[in-house]
């Protein structure tokens, strides 16, 4: 069963009551909300996501609701909650949806330490994945969105979830938050992409969420073998370059960008060393998405030979 199978009334009732169960890759969430605007967006953007089976464990109990106490009467606000606690200052109610999405990311980043969490987007084709570790502003979400609308499967836009037992990459095909100019870039690149409303003047500028293609959501339990590390950098008007990178440099960039490298200690060192050792590593500079997608298609084809 998927969210889209629920009637508007049933969805609202779950959000306001015991919570809406949702499956995102290896995690099960329960979301509660008393905001009607949130329910409407959730119904639209979460429609293809599966509900957990009865009796399955919930990893995160989250909520987005009006704050308690006097504050709720002074301004129209929304608080993100995890296990009933509010770790962040309230958001304006118009930003409730991105606030929940950021909050879910925060839950994963701070709690899922049974996995190595690289700060990286990832896509897959033919069972092999490209990881795109990058800092904010380097264009990994934009590039990732372009690729998943060009024949690649979304593994994640934000988390490279590596299973310590076998080094496989686990999918986490959540909504992709595009920011500022990237929103129009993707609208032009793939007009058919499903993009939610633009939230103006959030803490991260203007944000709009891309819903991954259905194939990526349907295959959210299918891991992939990491095959390439590509370190992207969007540079205005720059010609495309895709150049091999020294593995020692790649190691340092992957390790320093990981969410929990220090937490996992030696396990993280071993995993990152094994990953970098078994992957081809490249730096990519680009300004044109078509060129970047073509170059990565060619890279994967060349390695097929």
């Amino acid at each position, binding site marked *: 069963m998927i969210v889209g199978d629920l009637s508007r009334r049933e969805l609202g009732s779950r959000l306001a009551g015991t919570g809406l169960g949702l499956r995102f890759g290896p995690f099960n969430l329960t979301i509660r909300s008393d905001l009607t605007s949130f329910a409407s967006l959730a119904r639209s953007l979460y429609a293809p996501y599966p509900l957990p089976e009865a009796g399955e464990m919930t990893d995160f109990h989250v909520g987005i609701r009006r704050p308690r106490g006097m504050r709720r009467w002074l301004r129209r606000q929304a608080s993100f909650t995890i296990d009933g606690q509010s770790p962040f200052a309230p958001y304006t109610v118009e930003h409730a949806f991105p606030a929940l999405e950021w909050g879910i990311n925060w839950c994963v980043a701070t709690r899922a330490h049974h996995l190595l969490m690289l700060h990286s987007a990832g896509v897959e084709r033919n069972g092999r994945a490209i990881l795109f570790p990058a800092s904010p502003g380097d264009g990994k979400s934009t590039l990732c969105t372009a690729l998943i609308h060009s024949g690649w499967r979304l593994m994640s836009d934000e988390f490279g979830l590596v299973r310590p037992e076998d080094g496989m990459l686990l999918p986490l095909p959540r909504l992709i938050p595009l920011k500022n100019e990237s929103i129009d870039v993707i609208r032009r690149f793939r007009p058919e992409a499903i993009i939610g409303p633009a939230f103006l003047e959030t803490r991260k500028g203007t944000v709009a969420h891309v819903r991954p293609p259905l194939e990526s959501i349907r295959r959210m339990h299918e891991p992939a073998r990491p095959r390439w590390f590509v370190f992207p950098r969007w540079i205005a008007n720059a010609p495309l370059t895709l150049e091999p990178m*020294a*593995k020692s440099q790649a190691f340092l960039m992957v390790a320093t960008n990981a969410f929990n490298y220090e937490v996992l200690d*030696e396990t993280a*060192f071993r995993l990152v*060393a094994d990953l970098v050792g078994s992957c081809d590593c490249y730096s990519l500079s680009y300004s044109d998405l078509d060129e970047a997608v073509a170059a990565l298609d060619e890279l994967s084809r060349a390695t097929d030979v």
Partner: protein
Amino acid sequence: MSDSGEGAEILISTPAAGSLRWQQWDEVYLVYQASSAETHVFNDTTALILRCLEHGPQSLTAVRSWTETALGVEQGQLATDHFAFAVGRLEELGLVDSLEQALATQ
């Protein structure tokens, strides 16, 4: 590097050095130190000093000579400040110690 008994000072590797995990690519050594949960980046010289001390305590002169041979440079060609910097860094990380110092703290 302490300045007592320059050259004749005996260096030893510490127990922390025994639990290092190594990953080498080209001339760069990525080293995980379990005792501090830190990852270090060593060059050839620094890595070879540790390798040399795996054979047991050695004088600074002997360590330098062994390292120069391993690097493939003429004896006496390894810059003194370069060698001293590498030994000093390993001391700071608690991976090597002078035998005299180690005995004094026991």
